[in-house]
């Protein structure tokens, strides 16, 4: 990884983490309030993030040709498959139980909301079990 590429990746993560914290989606209670239909804020967060990212994904390759720090423009590999939907259904159960998803689980190491580290440890363990039982490609 070149220094420029690393710096861009670090800065992107920092923007993401700052935005996540500012939006209060790092707080499990705020997420659970959305899921219990008490506060629709999460829709604004998701909508705002998707709108900006949609523009970047659409316009970037057209205007830039290739990424600023080299490499190639990649695509998110979504697969229309049973495992995608089964995994999403399970993911939702865990998310609805804890109010924590992967981004906030990581971000809360920075905000100091220490009990969320329990959820982070659970996710890392869940990823391990999934990897051990997964079929190889």
């Amino acid at each position, binding site marked *: 990884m070149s220094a420029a590429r690393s710096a861009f990746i670090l800065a992107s993560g920092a923007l993401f983490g700052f935005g996540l914290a500012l939006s209060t989606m790092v707080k499990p209670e705020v997420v659970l309030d959305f899921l219990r239909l008490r506060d629709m804020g999460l829709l604004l967060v998701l909508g705002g*993030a998707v709108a900006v990212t949609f523009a970047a994904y659409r316009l970037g390759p057209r205007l830039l040709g290739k990424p600023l720090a080299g490499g190639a423009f990649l695509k998110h590999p979504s697969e229309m498959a049973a495992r995608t939907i089964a995994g999403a259904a399970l993911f939702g159960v865990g998310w609805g139980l804890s109010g924590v998803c992967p981004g906030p689980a990581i971000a809360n190491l920075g905000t100091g909301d220490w009990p969320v580290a329990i959820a982070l440890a659970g996710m890392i363990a869940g990823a391990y079990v999934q990897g051990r039982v997964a079929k190889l490609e």
Partner: protein
Amino acid sequence: MPELFPQGWQHYLVGGLLLGAGMSLLFLATGLIGGMSTVFTTVWSFFSSAPYFREERFMSSRQWRIVYALGIVLGALAWRLASGDAFVTHVPYWQLAAGGFIAGYGARLANGCTAGHGICGMASLQPASILAVLTFIATAMITANLVRAFA
């Protein structure tokens, strides 16, 4: 009619635009797609020789994903220092532990979470991601309401 945004709406929208800006900067500068849950699989490649963790897609992305995660921690820390907000959750530990485990397993089975399917997948209008998002919002709403009713 209940209020849609009892805590106000501006911080939600600005926060969402900022995290979209982070996702966009990552793409425009490096071409990478900033999904989040994959890092939980790729870190295992450093400790485990199980064949799944050694797949090319994980081995080739494990370094940048750690840098990205580090950036997220630093960005959140910057917000913590700027805001002085020392919030600590009251969600019971068993819910954090069990919910985290199930969410981690499910996100990796689905190959994406609220970031990968919710932001990246929807922003590239992928049908599988849109279906995944509708699915996990539905099961999350059912779960959160059942927990409130019985726990």
